[in-house]
């Protein structure tokens, strides 16, 4: 039997993707709705009328629920990964979700992983991420018709230990063995470096939905060696959206006396309009806000691109300092960067491209940043390349090797609260350091060690990673024991610790208390399938999913004649739809998921022109004041969007 596939996953702030190596090429796997981007949005469905636990919807379906039931939907959860209570509180000022009530009231253990209230249920950030990962896993399993159990997941290069651990925990909860965490900019470099046997120094500028990373790499003989990395895990397109949203909310209050902040659904609608405006300004010189308020008033606002660029300038400027620091750490001048790769949706903004051009003196040198690969997909494609490297089953990746670095220095709190650095930032990982400790009191059996991550001189200014208790030290006079503690940052950028008392040769026992994080036991308990799909075997699940999909499509098709667009079809087209419908209805009663899926494709293909006609109608309705996207979502109620596999099958 062939070895199981390893997939590559980009678990993004805004969108998530799953990809694999199709022979020698990385390919993104589409979801059930045909889209290759799965919005990183999770919605708690309504409680079933017969009682029991509500199920969860992930992706575009969940995004639709955002307008209807915003209190049951969560997005941008990546911003909460690996963060403690105080940090989450800070994040939630900008997000419309709430902490579980005990935590909000200050009654929860501050060392517990914060829980978010979603409808009547509470979830930790890794659990929410696990639902997104499980959706991606299922999309891939559907695509392959086989189980998927091993994955490479990407994380922002500037993620700290806790954020990385939280991501790994999420993978485990989703039933995935995470073979490696790969830094997003490095993954992008892999995707670009695959089809070019290039040598040289490249910079990857990764400006995504919620995070910013810059990495500088040296390419030689298929070795991708990261020289330095820097970034800001609190900087992304989200910040631009929030800025536009804040301005609109303030203006609406000032001009119309309406305080929309108290209406989550209205805020969501406005946020959507802000995002549309931002996207529109990528190509259009000016966009118009037109939002109808509850009292019938209209909030009208024209935003020319120049004004937009002035507004976002302070946000974009925050990407400059990390770039300069990364160059300095690599010991390079901007002119020594041969190529710059652009990653993340926010790099589509013309002002961002100009900033990058200036930072690396590109046009002065007759160069352009690389945008050939879709900036939304390039990280997932790179993750698939890394998956290929780990699986060792692709010719294209045989000679490739990625040598990444740790983004932050690792240190130990010393006397007086200062930090003694033991592993410097930008050290190639795996990296290790050994330190020695002793006791200060006769017979002392425990020594406490506080490990921090960061560049500041004082431990309180750094990120607390963990407190370790060295236990079971044999009774000796003060200062006599010599405990050797080995710190090792593994290839995922995660810390491992081991200790040995050298005089007795006894392995000292270590009790690791991560400052923010789930214990192994908690993760075990949260494994999704343990309460969700435990007894269902894989084939059965495939059949259920195929049937569900068939039923959705059949229901939509049966309502089709009621739609005005139906009249615009030719007689032949209508007949073809009817035949395909009956064929699918018949297949759906059978037990073969493959046959059902084939019938789904046929009906989907037959209804394609009908879908287009409805889309046209939606465009006209958009001109009457609705946004394009909202109109598209209305459509979702009527027909399924073009199907995932249709183009490949029928083109």
């Amino acid at each position, binding site marked *: 039997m062939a*070895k199981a596939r390893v997939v590559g996953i980009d678990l993004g702030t805004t969108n998530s993707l799953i990809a694999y190596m199709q022979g020698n090429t990385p390919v993104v796997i589409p979801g059930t709705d045909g889209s290759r981007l799965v919005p990183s949005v999770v919605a708690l469905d309504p409680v079933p009328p017969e009682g029991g636990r509500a199920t969860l919807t992930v992706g575009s379906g969940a995004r639709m629920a955002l307008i209807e039931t915003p209190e049951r939907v969560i997005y941008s959860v990546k911003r909460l990964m690996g963060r403690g209570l105080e940090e989450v509180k800070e994040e939630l000022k900008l997000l419309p979700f709430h902490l579980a009530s005990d935590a909000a009231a200050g009654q929860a253990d501050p060392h517990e992983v914060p829980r978010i209230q979603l409808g009547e249920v509470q979830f930790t950030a890794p659990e929410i991420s696990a639902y997104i990962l499980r959706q991606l896993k299922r999309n891939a399993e559907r695509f392959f018709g086989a189980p998927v159990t091993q994955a490479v997941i990407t994380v922002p290069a500037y993620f700290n230990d806790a954020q990385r651990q939280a991501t790994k925990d999420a993978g485990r909860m989703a039933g995935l063995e995470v073979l490696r965490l790969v830094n997003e900019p490095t993954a992008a470099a892999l995707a670009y470096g695959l089809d070019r046997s290039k040598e040289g120094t490249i910079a990857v500028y990764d400006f995504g939905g919620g995070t910013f990373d810059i990495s500088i790499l040296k390419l030689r003989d298929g070795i991708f060696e990261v020289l330095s990395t820097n970034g800001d895990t609190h900087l992304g397109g989200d910040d631009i959206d929030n800025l536009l949203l804040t301005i609109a909310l303030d203006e609406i209050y000032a001009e119309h006396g309406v305080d929309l902040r108290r209406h989550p659904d209205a805020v969501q609608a406005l946020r959507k309009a802000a995002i549309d405006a931002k996207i529109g300004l990528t190509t259009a010189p000016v966009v118009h806000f037109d939002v109808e308020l509850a009292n019938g008033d209209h909030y009208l606002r024209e935003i020319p691109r120049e004004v937009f660029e002035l507004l976002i300038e302070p946000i974009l400027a925050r990407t400059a300092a990390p770039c300069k620091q990364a160059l300095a750490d690599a010991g390079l001048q901007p002119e020594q960067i041969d190529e710059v790769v652009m990653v993340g949706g926010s790099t589509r903004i013309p002002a961002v491209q100009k900033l990058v051009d200036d930072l690396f003196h590109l046009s002065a040198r007759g160069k352009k940043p690389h945008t050939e690969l879709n900036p939304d997909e390039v990280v997932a494609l790179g993750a698939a390349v890394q998956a290929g490297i780990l699986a060792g089953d692709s010719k294209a990746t045989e000679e490739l090797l990625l040598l990444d670095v740790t983004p932050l220095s690792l240190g130990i709190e010393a006397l007086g609260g200062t930090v003694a650095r033991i592993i410097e930032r930008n050290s190639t990982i795996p990296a290790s350091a050994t330190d020695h400790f002793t006791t200060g009191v006769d017979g002392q059996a425990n020594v406490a060690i506080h490990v921090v991550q960061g560049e500041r001189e004082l431990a309180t200014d750094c990120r607390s990673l963990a407190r370790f208790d060295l236990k079971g030290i044999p009774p000796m006079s003060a200062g006599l024991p010599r405990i050797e503690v080995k710190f090792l940052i593994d290839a995922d950028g995660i810390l491992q610790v081991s200790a040995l008392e050298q005089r007795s040769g006894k392995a000292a026992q270590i009790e690791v208390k991560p400052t923010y994080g789930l214990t192994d036991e908690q993760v075990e308990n949260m494994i999704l399938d343990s309460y969700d799909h435990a007894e269902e075997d894989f084939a059965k699940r495939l059949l259920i999913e195929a049937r569900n999909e068939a039923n959705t499509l059949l229901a939509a098709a049966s309502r089709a004649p009621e739609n005005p667009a139906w009249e615009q079809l030719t007689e032949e087209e209508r007949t073809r739809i009817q035949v395909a419908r009956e064929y699918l209805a018949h297949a759906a009663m059978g037990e073969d998921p493959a046959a059902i899926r084939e019938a789904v494709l046929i009906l989907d293909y037959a209804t394609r022109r009908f879908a287009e006609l409805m889309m046209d109608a939606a465009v006209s309705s958009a001109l009457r004041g609705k946004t394009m996207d909202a109109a598209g979502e209305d459509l979702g109620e009527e027909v399924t969007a073009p199907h995932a596999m249709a183009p490949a099958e029928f083109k």
Partner: protein
Amino acid sequence: MKPRLNLDLAALETEFHRLSRKLHPDRFARAAENEKQWSLADTALLNDAYRTLKDPLHRTEYLLKLEGADIVLEADAELNPGPIQAQVGNGRKDPSRIPADLLEEVFDLNMQLEEMRGLHKRGGADPELRSSLTRAKKKFDRLLGEVDMDLRAEWLAWDEGDQAARLAAQERMVALLDRRRYLSNLVRDVTETLGA
């Protein structure tokens, strides 16, 4: 391979890449657990070795230490007693090692640094003091550059000389390294104070 201070860096990199291909955890992603652990430990050691040898200063310190020279490595933490909280120190401020020719200047500089920090706390500014500190920083930067040149000048003698020449070079380098450590701490203090 003979330890050399004048190292062929291109050859070092090629060797690093060759060994990385052989040992890296990516090559053992689906191997048995014990193989994974060996790969992890060996690669960490390889990376630490490459990092040390690649950098001229770390390389000099490391190779001299191998020869038994008395050097305080920046990265080496000392063994310190601690009641409950473990204590570590990195021994980088050892007053007995102030270079004699700089004694007076360092004394003045420390006064100025104190004054500047005091000013910062009160939110004041003194352009004259600032430019004096900036001048001092320039000077110490230049002295650092000179030490680096002097160090390099000893490499050949250490690499190629006979036993006596080697020992003499080693002694001079140990002194230079002490001086360098002191200067670089000074520059760091001035930079921090100016930047604050």
